[in-house]
């Protein structure tokens, strides 16, 4: 296909939609469709959401949205990030009269927020949050979920984070929730190290959300170099506060020299 026209692109997009809607979609097939579709869109110069008819814009947006969903299924986070970046102009810059809002808009924005959380990009998370319409921010379940999650993470209610796995608003959210689980497990571990001197293995497992105190837990303890006493079945955490700080000599010298220099300037 040398040059693309709107009609064939729309057909191709339909084919992709059908393939994606299948319960066991062929992801490689979808990828091929997507690549061809992106080439077509680029030839039609529809990728940048500048002036065009509303149908063409809707088509381009649908393709990108499907691409975003596909990348989550394929587990390709960087591809998802790219699709979201391309979708942003469609969501924020094109007026609603020209292009009616998509039903997949808020699920995708919510997914993007979740992605930022799993990557611990909290600053970007809040920047993205500012762009969302305030009423949607409060009422939309797709936005509420990552929002609640972030709050729980910040205050340390990890139990809530764990529980929210069960309350995902869309199946795609689980993908990121799984990544988030290992993140919070590490987070909890670093808290436990500081807060306890010793813990029974069973309690440790519940705190870290392991189903029971078995090899998985032992493996985790070894990674963090915690000592497990097999007799009492207790985990001991190495105390790190023994490090005695010496005088910060270099710092004091440089500071004093700067003072001397500055005073010299004044007098």
């Amino acid at each position: 296909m040398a040059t693309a026209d709107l009609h064939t692109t729309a057909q191709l997009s339909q084919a992709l939609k059908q393939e994606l809607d299948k319960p066991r979609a062929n992801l490689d097939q979808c990828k091929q469709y997507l690549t061809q579709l992106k080439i077509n869109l680029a030839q039609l110069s529809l990728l940048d959401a500048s002036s065009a008819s509303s149908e063409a814009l809707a088509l381009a947006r649908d393709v990108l949205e499907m691409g975003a969903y596909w990348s989550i299924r394929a587990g390709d986070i960087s591809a998802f990030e790219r699709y979201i970046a391309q979708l942003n102009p469609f969501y924020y810059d094109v007026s609603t009269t020209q292009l009616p809002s998509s039903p997949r808009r808020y699920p995708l924005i919510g997914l993007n927020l979740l992605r930022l959380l799993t990557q611990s990009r909290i600053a970007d998370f809040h920047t993205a949050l500012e762009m969302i319409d305030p009423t949607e921010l409060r009422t939309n379940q797709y936005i509420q979920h990552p929002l609640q999650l972030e709050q729980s993470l910040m205050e340390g209610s990890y139990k809530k984070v764990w529980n929210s796995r069960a309350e995902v608003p869309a199946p795609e959210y689980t993908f990121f929730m799984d990544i988030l689980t290992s993140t919070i497990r590490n987070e909890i571990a670093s808290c436990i190290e500081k807060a306890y001197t010793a813990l029974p293995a069973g309690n440790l497992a519940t705190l870290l959300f392991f189903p029971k105190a078995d090899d998985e837990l032992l493996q985790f303890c070894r990674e963090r170099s915690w000592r497990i006493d097999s007799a009492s079945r207790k985990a001991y955490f190495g105390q790190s506060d023994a490090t005695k700080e010496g005088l910060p000599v270099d710092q004091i010298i440089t500071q004093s020299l700067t003072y001397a220099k500055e005073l010299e300037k004044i007098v």
Partner: protein
Amino acid sequence: MSVEAVASAMEVEPTSPNVQMEEKRSRFETDLNRNITFLKKAVTSLETRYLHRVLRTIPSMRKRLDRSVLAKSIQLHFLPEFGDKEHLLKLLEESGVDMEVEQPLATSKGQQPVGEPEVSAYLCLLVMIYLLDSKQNAAGMALAESVSQRVVALNRRTLDPIAAKIFFYCARFYEVEGRLADIRASLMAHLRTATLRHDDELQATLLNLILRNLLHYNLYDQAQKLVSKATFPESASNSQMARYMYYQGRIKAIELDYSDAHTFLLQAQRKAPQTHATAGFHQAVQKLFVIVQLLMGEIPERSIFRQPVLRKALAPYLSITQAVRVGDLSKFQATLACHEGRFRADKTYTLILRLRHNVIKAGIRMISLSYLRIPLRDVCIKLHLDSEEDAEYIVSKAIRDGVIDATIDHERGFIQTKEVADVYATSEPQETFNQRIQFCLKLYNESVKALRFPLNAHKKDLESTNEALEREREIVNEFTRTEFKSDEESDLGEP
């Protein structure tokens, strides 16, 4: 006598508003004329000081703006190459009933207007302000567009400060009309030109306008990118600097960089002039500042909330602060719900939402200060937390983040607080001291840099020394001459 008084009173009464108007008008006229003289002086002496002096009077002129005087002035001073004079006059006329100055207009028609483009630009600026005040936004927008184009095309350094003002009002028209997004591209283009021309005043103004524009639409991402790429001219005026600091503080606060936001907002407060006209700015800065301080874990001083200008505006923020200080989660939520609309309008709502965990932290700190040992369940009740399990996580996180120094005994389910360490044994006081010294030194250095010396003042001294030298030389000359003369005379007398 009494009859006379009554008669004069009767005479005066109906005309008195007219007389007052007349007086006001004549005062405005003298001011306007004085400003025009200043503008001309600025051009001939190439001294921007006069320009700034003229522009400083804009707020007071704005209140007394008089159509007919302005029209007369336009007739006298407006340059034909600067645009359509008739169009400008028509703009003034449209809103008015009738022009009383029709007569002088006709007589001055024959006169060829002589003047500088600065004067014309200034007059256009006044017309724009007039249109803005009389809510003729569409006409004003068109005028602002054309004038700004022309000013940029003229490319005169003495026009720069006026150009900055013109752009400011141009953007203001768009904002009033709610079409801010439309002007962004053109502002960007002009910013590029201004940067290339080293037009500091315009550059600073445009940067601020673009930032305001972006923040209006909550485009923090783009604003952040702009700030990181563009350099703000250091020689910009303080008011622009203060604005820039405020916007930067805003961006940093959204990005969770609270310590930077704190510095920027503090500078914004200090740079802004402390007058009644800037009350709105101070309120906006303080609101954000209070929240940023709270987010950093500091409690703002009580005196801030007592200042007469700020007291009313900051009232909701005071109750938030109180809730955070005591660590009372339910009070915090109640305040948040009560003033939600207000916080949304101030665009601080999302920031305040982040405070929730600060409230919890403050609560935990209070508890650990008052109890040596406390069961987790009591902590849970005191902080109004949902579950004991979460309380355990929250406390352990607080321990890790260094909010409190304690250990948790899981089996017996309580928190044991450790002995309070002596802060003065650490390097903490030294660091704080260092921070303050640095600040003072920086302040001193900056004020030295900001000192302004009158231009060519040293020349006077030079002249007087030159004069002295000259005189000395003359005296020497005279002396040698007389000596020579006397020699000659003596020579003559000899034979």
